[in-house]
């Protein structure tokens, strides 16, 4: 397994959010994490990338490295990249500078080639390379956020709500890009509100509820499972 999370408990201050989450992502897989608001989806990503969520117990092993004891930067260096909710671009900087800042942990000699590769993948960004990130449309901003993460040469890309605020055809475009990344061998862990659409593209999925895994299985099985809807909208799961 590329990413192996076992019995993870995490939270913020006095608040416990994750109450024992076990999850794995293999190389070249697209795995979705679904669940209602407040279930702990974003906290899971924030714990794996060692941001502000405090880990109480459990293990996170990424590509043979212990992430629980590692810093965020170490995780990035090993190839575990987080595209956070709301993009979090450097909005006053140009598209080009945003991309280059994504390459902070890699060998400088490869940066130019990598930037060219990102522009080849996202022609819309190439046309706007001198503009500030602020001036981009929502879809372009999401592409830039993904492109910036690609600059660190990720083995695993974790995306938090990439479809938020985007029109349906732009969302389809983003998912096409993700499918292409997966074909090239990048593993993907994707947190999404849009459960049905995500299940169409993912290989497997976990449904979080109240900080624990309520359901897990192949995307096809879960798409047909009425319990998914019950978790989101209440009612009986059994």
């Amino acid at each position, binding site marked *: 397994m590329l990413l192996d999370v076992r019995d993870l408990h995490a939270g913020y201050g006095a608040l416990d959010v994750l109450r024992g989450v076990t999850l794995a992502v293999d190389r070249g897989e697209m795995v979705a994490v679904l669940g*209602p608001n*407040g279930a702990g989806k974003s906290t899971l990503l924030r714990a794996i990338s060692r941001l502000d969520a405090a880990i109480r117990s459990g293990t996170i092993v990424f590509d043979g490295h212990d992430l629980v004891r590692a810093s965020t930067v170490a995780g990035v260096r090993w190839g575990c990249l987080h595209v956070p909710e709301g993009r979090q671009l450097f909005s006053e900087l140009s598209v080009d500078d945003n991309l280059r800042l994504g390459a902070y942990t890699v060998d400088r000699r490869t940066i130019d080639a990598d930037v060219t590769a990102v522009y080849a993948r996202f022609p819309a960004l190439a046309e706007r390379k001198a503009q500030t990130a602020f001036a981009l449309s929502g879809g372009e901003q999401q592409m830039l956020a993904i492109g910036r993460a690609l600059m660190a040469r990720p083995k695993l890309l974790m995306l938090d709500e990439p479809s938020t605020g985007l029109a349906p055809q732009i969302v389809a475009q983003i998912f096409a890009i993700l499918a292409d990344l997966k074909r090239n061998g990048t593993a993907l862990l994707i947190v999404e*509100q*849009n459960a049905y*659409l995500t299940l169409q593209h993912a290989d497997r999925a976990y449904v979080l509820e*109240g900080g624990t895994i309520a359901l897990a299985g192949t995307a096809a099985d879960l798409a047909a499972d009425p319990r998914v809807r019950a978790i*989101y*909208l*209440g009612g009986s799961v059994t």
Partner: protein
Amino acid sequence: MFAAIVIAFGIAAAGNPSIAQAGTYAAIYGIAAMGLSLLMGNVNQISIGQAGFFGLGAYAVAYATTTWTLPGWLLWPLAAALGVAAAALAGIAVGFIALRFRGHFLAVATLAFGLICVGVFHEAAPLGGAIGIQDVPYPQFGALTISGYPAYWFAWAFAGLVALASINLLRGRTGRAFEAIRNDELAADVLGIPTRRYKILAFTYAGALAGLAGAIYASFLGIVVPDAVGVPLSITLLLMVVLGGNGSVSGALIGAAILGVIDISGHQFENSREVAYGVLVIVVVIVAPGGLFGLLRSRVARAPAAAAERAPVPARPRPPVPTGHNDAAPLAVTCVTKRFGGLVAVNDVSFTLERGTLTSLIGPNGAGKTTLFNAISGVGALTAGRIVIAGTDVTGLQPHRIAALGVGRTFQNARLFGEMTVLENVMAGSFRLERTTRGATERAHATLARLGLEHLAGTLARDLAFGDRRRVELARAIAADPWMLLVDEPAAGLNASERATLQRDLLALRDDGVTLLLIEHDMRLVMAISQRVLVLKFGALIADGPPDAVRDDPAVIAAYLGTSV
């Protein structure tokens, strides 16, 4: 104890004019510092312009005593009253300014006020321009001239009165309001505490005290010049408060005493003095953020006070829930729209609640639920629309006015007053009903008993476990017996047993006749306890009906789970 030190020092200084003088300055600065300490430490408002108020008091006395012809026993008191009144009026004006600014913007605004005052003193011909006013007479009461040694007792008599007045103010209802505002202004406002009025009061009080200090100063020194009441004095007062301990009367006096003595005895080191002040403050802020008095106090056990608070109080029978003013609907929201720049957070929403029902407001993240709650409770102005609570149009009213109608509210992130105990938090909740500390204490105990939280009464809110925090917030919201309650995500972060308790508490409130509107993401809870569910998506109401119908509504399913195409 402080009085004893003052008296002992006064007796010891009897034969030594320069020591008595230092003591007098300590009293004068102490009066101004007590005002600033209350403003900064108790209400969390900064002012770097206190010398402006000080100057108003000083110039009023200097001008009046040199121009008016009145009998001696009347002259100084009238002149001082003029100075205090002028400073208090200026305090009201600065207080209004402070309603618009916060943090460092407020610091700059008050600094500007101080600079303006010095500028006016400098330019005003009747005030002597740059030379100021000379030969200000000493206060004269019959045969007694207040100068030199008697001035020590004169100044400390005022300082003592001010200390008593401040302690009295802070112990009562005003002190409770200040404490709540200091901890969380918004939460204080929705509990019915008129935060604007209290902030202006604090500025007025601090201004008046600085003016009084200036009045004593002018007649003690006999001369007032603009440079003496400039920015350096404002900074010195600030240092006294920080050094002695923010937010305590004793701290302000300790700080004033230390700097007052250094000021006089260190005259030959004029230039290095400012450096010493700077170093002192940095050391104090790092080593003892509570100031010198904070250091002293932390060694004194606070246990007896906590034990006293836990003395059993008979739980009062629960009063019937007032039903509002008339038979009008408890809440009618009509075509409400709220925009933030280009974002429409709430889009033309209308609904009416029925009395004594539990309605849930649900929707995906960013649907506008909390924005709508804010609109109903008066936080932020509406872009369009009308909100009527029990027949009263509350559109545009301040939060504390809406609370006064009998509407309670909790927050998504449980905005408790962290530095206050659970009991004090719940006491603040009954602010609009209970005028006396005793009444508020009894009601708070009764409310805690009702929710089974009595054992937490003495705990500081910031030390509470997460689940308890939510329940204490609920206790605070119902302490004033609201007949309508807006509850924002009460189940977030709770475990299964805490959720069961919450469900029981909410249903008990509904059965008592309270109208409840609930924002919640836990759908099992929502579906189990709601009589009606409203669904928001991108700010618009997309569904409204009983739980079962809403759960099977295709638009709601699409809002929550997306669509596969």
